[in-house]
């Protein structure tokens, strides 16, 4: 239970930790991303505004080129002749975006292609500039013959290396506005062309970010030293960005105005995508964690089942061990001792001893073929049948085995059998009557000799086949004689080199230990077997019983 709580606590902590890590990293990401997006957006807006300015500038240059094309009509005209100048300009057709195209001679006298004069332009900046041989765009706007506020573009007329006049074209504010509008980069922005004083020369105010009443951009933002850059203005509810860049003409500037929400919307949009990803990753992680928890539960369940089976086997081993009597008889005629060391998996070895009457001691050494619970159960049945038949029937040894054999053959569908050595010792006389149903030959030591295998004509094991007969044999023990009974776990104990312990080594050790007490003898035998097998798990039960006849 403690373990369970602990693991739950760990899983719970992991989930919480995951959520916290995701939240923190998201917040860090969000703020740094916002800043990053803001920076990159600002530089994008600045670049875009520069592009607008460049496009606008190019458009003005295009218009100048168009004016230049009109100069050819005046190459051979005497511009001092006002009427000739007038006739020629009227004969030309309009070109470009201009409201009016006109011509001026070196005195500043003008005439446009509608036959009207724009007055004398001798003192205007664009006339002076054009007469010095350069294409010119007026630095400020002028009021034309119709009272319209116009920007004037002018190109020089050259005759024989001298500049003798100019061709000029006028842009009304509407035309300028349309040039700005067509240069604009974004539906979200408005652009403004400012002269060096901040006066708005042209505007694209489709969005209406800046009130039409405002004629000077300084009313919006202080342009002092603000030659180029991104500036914020307006209040919190309608915060705007002004992106200012020089046009590259006079000291004019182009301003793009966008609401700051353009950036924050972009940032939010990206943030939203990131939230989706973070949530997806988080969900996937929690799902993974959940699967791991389920998997661990399953494994734990399997381990529990394994433990249960192990426990069952332990119970079987315990039953097996508990079935063995350990209250060894304390009689002056005999000394008796036995041990059983079960293998890792429960086997089917058993020994037994019991008094049939005061003078008759029965000894059983047996081994059920097979392992596990079936073998253990078969062992329990075999042991009680042998004991009951022996005590109740008062039969001789051979008959006991025959009766027990038929009893065990009944309902033995799994083909189990049990090798059994049964002996009955008459304590008063030392006569040992025995029959061997397929069991290992006992080792016997006659008083002054060595241990020897009591090789006989063994019968098949019990339960192997019905209606078998088990002939008896007998020996008479003298004082000091010793009988050693064992199962195949002793001679067949295997070491890592696949060698078996063998009966020769067993007999050798028995001889060595023969003058010791039986407990020491069996303990040392077991120790020898363990030393022999080394690190190998004991594969079979090791069961031994020794009897010494004391006379």
């Amino acid at each position, binding site marked *: 239970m403690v373990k369970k709580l602990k693991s739950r606590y760990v899983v719970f902590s992991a989930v919480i930790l995951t959520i916290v890590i995701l939240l923190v990293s998201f917040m860090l990401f969000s703020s740094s991303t916002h800043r990053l997006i803001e920076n990159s957006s600002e530089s994008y807006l600045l670049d875009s505004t520069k592009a607008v300015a460049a496009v606008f500038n190019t458009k003005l240059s295009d218009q100048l080129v168009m004016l230049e094309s009109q100069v050819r009509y005046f190459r051979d005209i005497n511009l001092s002749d006002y009427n000739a100048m007038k006739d020629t300009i009227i004969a030309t057709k309009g070109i470009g975006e201009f409201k009016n195209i006109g011509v001026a001679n070196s005195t500043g006298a003008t005439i446009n292609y509608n036959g009207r004069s724009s007055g004398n332009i001798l003192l205007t900046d664009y006339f002076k500039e054009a007469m010095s041989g350069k294409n010119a765009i007026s630095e400020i706007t002028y009021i034309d013959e119709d009272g319209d506020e116009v920007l004037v573009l002018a190109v020089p007329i050259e005759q024989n290396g001298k500049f003798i006049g100019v061709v000029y074209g006028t842009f009304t504010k509407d035309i300028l506005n349309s040039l700005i509008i067509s240069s604009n980069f974004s539906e979200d922005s408005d652009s403004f062309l400012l002269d060096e004083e901040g006066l708005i020369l042209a505007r694209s105010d489709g969005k209406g970010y800046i009130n039409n009443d405002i004629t000077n951009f300084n009313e919006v933002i202080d342009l002092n030293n603000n030659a180029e850059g991104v500036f914020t203005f307006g209040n919190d509810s309608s915060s705007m960005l002004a992106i200012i860049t020089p046009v590259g003409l006079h000291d004019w500037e182009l301003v793009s105005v966008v609401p700051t929400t353009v950036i924050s919307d972009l940032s939010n949009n990206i943030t939203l995508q990131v939230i989706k990803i973070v949530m997806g990753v988080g969900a996937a992680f929690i799902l993974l964690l959940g699967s791991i928890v389920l998997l661990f539960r399953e494994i734990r369940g399997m381990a529990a089942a394994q433990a249960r089976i192990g426990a069952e086997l332990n119970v079987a081993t315990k039953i097996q061990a508990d079935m063995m009597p350990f209250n060894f008889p304390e009689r002056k005629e005999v000394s008796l001792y036995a041990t059983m060391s079960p293998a890792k998996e429960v086997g089917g070895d058993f020994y037994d001893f019991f008094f049939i009457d005061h003078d008759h001691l029965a000894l059983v050494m047996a081994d059920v*073929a097979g392992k596990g619970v079936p073998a253990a159960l078969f062992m329990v049945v075999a042991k009680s049948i042998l004991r009951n038949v022996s005590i109740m029937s008062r039969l001789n040894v051979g008959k006991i085995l025959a009766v027990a054999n038929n009893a065990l053959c009944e309902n033995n569908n799994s083909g189990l*059998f049990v090798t059994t050595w049964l002996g009955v010792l008459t304590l008063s006389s030392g006569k040992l009557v025995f029959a061997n149903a397929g069991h290992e030959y006992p080792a016997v030591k006659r008083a002054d000799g060595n241990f020897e295998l009591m090789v006989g004509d*063994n019968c098949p094991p019990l339960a192997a086949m019905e209606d078998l007969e088990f002939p008896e044999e007998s020996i008479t023990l003298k004082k000091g004689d010793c009988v050693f009974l064992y199962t195949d776990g002793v001679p067949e104990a295997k070491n890592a080199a696949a060698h078996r312990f063998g009966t020769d080594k067993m007999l050798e050790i028995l001889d060595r230990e023969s003058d010791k007490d039986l407990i020491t003898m069996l303990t040392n035998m077991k120790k020898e077997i363990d030393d022999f097998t080394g690190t190998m798990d004991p594969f079979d039960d090791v069961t031994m019983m020794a009897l010494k006849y004391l006379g």
Partner: protein
Amino acid sequence: MNFEKTNGGNTLTVELIGEVDSMNTPELEEKLLKEIEGVTELIFDLKGLEYISSAGLRVLLTMQKMMKAQGSMVIKNTNEEVMEIFKVTGFVRLLNLA
């Protein structure tokens, strides 16, 4: 272990090699039960067998009981070591040793 069927599938010869113990008897038993169908003569050739545990003996006994109903079972070429096991376990009296 080797399995060989002759005589039109009526004779099954099983060659047991090395050691037959509780480690490999499940495999032996499974194979035998799969092959035994229709076999009237089952021959165990123990020429190469060095050791047989009680688990292995159990298989021989089971097969003998089965073959009693459908034919015969014989054990050939038993060497000295294995014969000793058959003697100790009393199997010499159960098995048909050729």
